[in-house]
């Protein structure tokens, strides 16, 4: 028997983390069920304190074919990096 439960991507934020991290995917009938399935499947070992679920078809991803034109040009533009400033020793959090 087949069913058409959509696929969801799951993101979890750790207790001390600042951002949600992708941990995997699962099937669910709707958004609320996806959230609860994610809690059951991906937070069994105290992995996190916050869950985001997103329908996989809502995600637009870059294509591997476009990798060269998307990402290579930024590799040789050293002037875009803030490495030519000298920081005094007593400036924190940089």
């Amino acid at each position, binding site marked *: 028997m087949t069913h058409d439960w959509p696929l969801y991507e799951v993101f*979890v934020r750790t207790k001390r*983390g*600042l951002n949600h991290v992708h941990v995997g995917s699962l099937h669910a009938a709707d958004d609320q069920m996806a959230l609860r399935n994610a809690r*059951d499947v991906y937070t069994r070992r*105290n992995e*996190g304190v916050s869950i985001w679920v997103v329908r996989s078809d809502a995600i637009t991803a870059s294509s591997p074919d476009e990798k060269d034109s998307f990402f290579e040009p930024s590799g040789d533009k050293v002037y875009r990096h803030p490495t030519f400033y000298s920081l005094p020793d007593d400036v924190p959090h940089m």
Partner: protein
Amino acid sequence: MNDQHESVYDGLLGGDSSQWAFGTDFEDPLAGVDPTVPEGVDRAALAAYCLMLGDDALVLSHRLSEWCSNAPELEEDIALANIALDLLGQARLLLARAAVVDPSSVPALPEGSPVPDEDRLAFFREQDAFRNVRMAELPNGDFAHAIVRLLLMSSTRLALMERLRASRDQVLAAIADKSVKELAYHRDHSARWFVTLAQGTGESRRRLLSALHELWPTYDELLGAHAACDEVSAAGMGVDPTTVRVEVDVVLEQVLAAAGVERPAVAPLAAVRGRSGRDGLHTEHLGRMLAEMQVVARAHPMGRW
């Protein structure tokens, strides 16, 4: 950078990678709790009360574990297994407490046996010493049956545990505090499925109504009065189940209304000469379940596991 992590698992490491397989920062729910048994209560009654709550959890946990690899969806398989493990944890703490309160309740094993008291109670008691409600021991039916049973038992248990947090017995209060968080999720999970099945297809609704009808006769026993409960609640250490009937009804009415389902009009399952599950009077199903559950442990009374 400070708290950014490549992988969600990195955040778990306390710098010691040998801990990875077991996670980090585990909290012991009984850490810092005063284990002395308060004065002013009959020990046998208090132990019986612990066994009632513990056996409910133990027997239901075993029935839920039978769904492992049999649930309709992978995610649901894990959810039911998680719920079974939550209940097993509650059972272990409650059985251990019963053993401390009344050591004479623990089955005797050969001299030198390393089996802990709570395991002795779980695996070496006969069925007439088990104090769970009969709803817990009924064999599994279909998924709708599992959901209805979980809804009814988690709703009543949650109401009891919420009140038990105020127990004069510090250990019971701590157990109740941990249990409330787990049971809130069990009730949420089963209530959502209840509504989903009721409002789903013709078949899911038919199966749900059939399960409700089948389980309803054993519902009254969940919040039935008992002498041991009276004794323990009068001493400020337990909860008289009859006092939470109204609030549980309110919750169930909400779920039934959302599901568009009527409360069944079925008579309660009779007691036998005034005795029911709480007194060790069980259906034929418990004996068979325990035979399977206890056989390995009983084959190794000197075993260590």
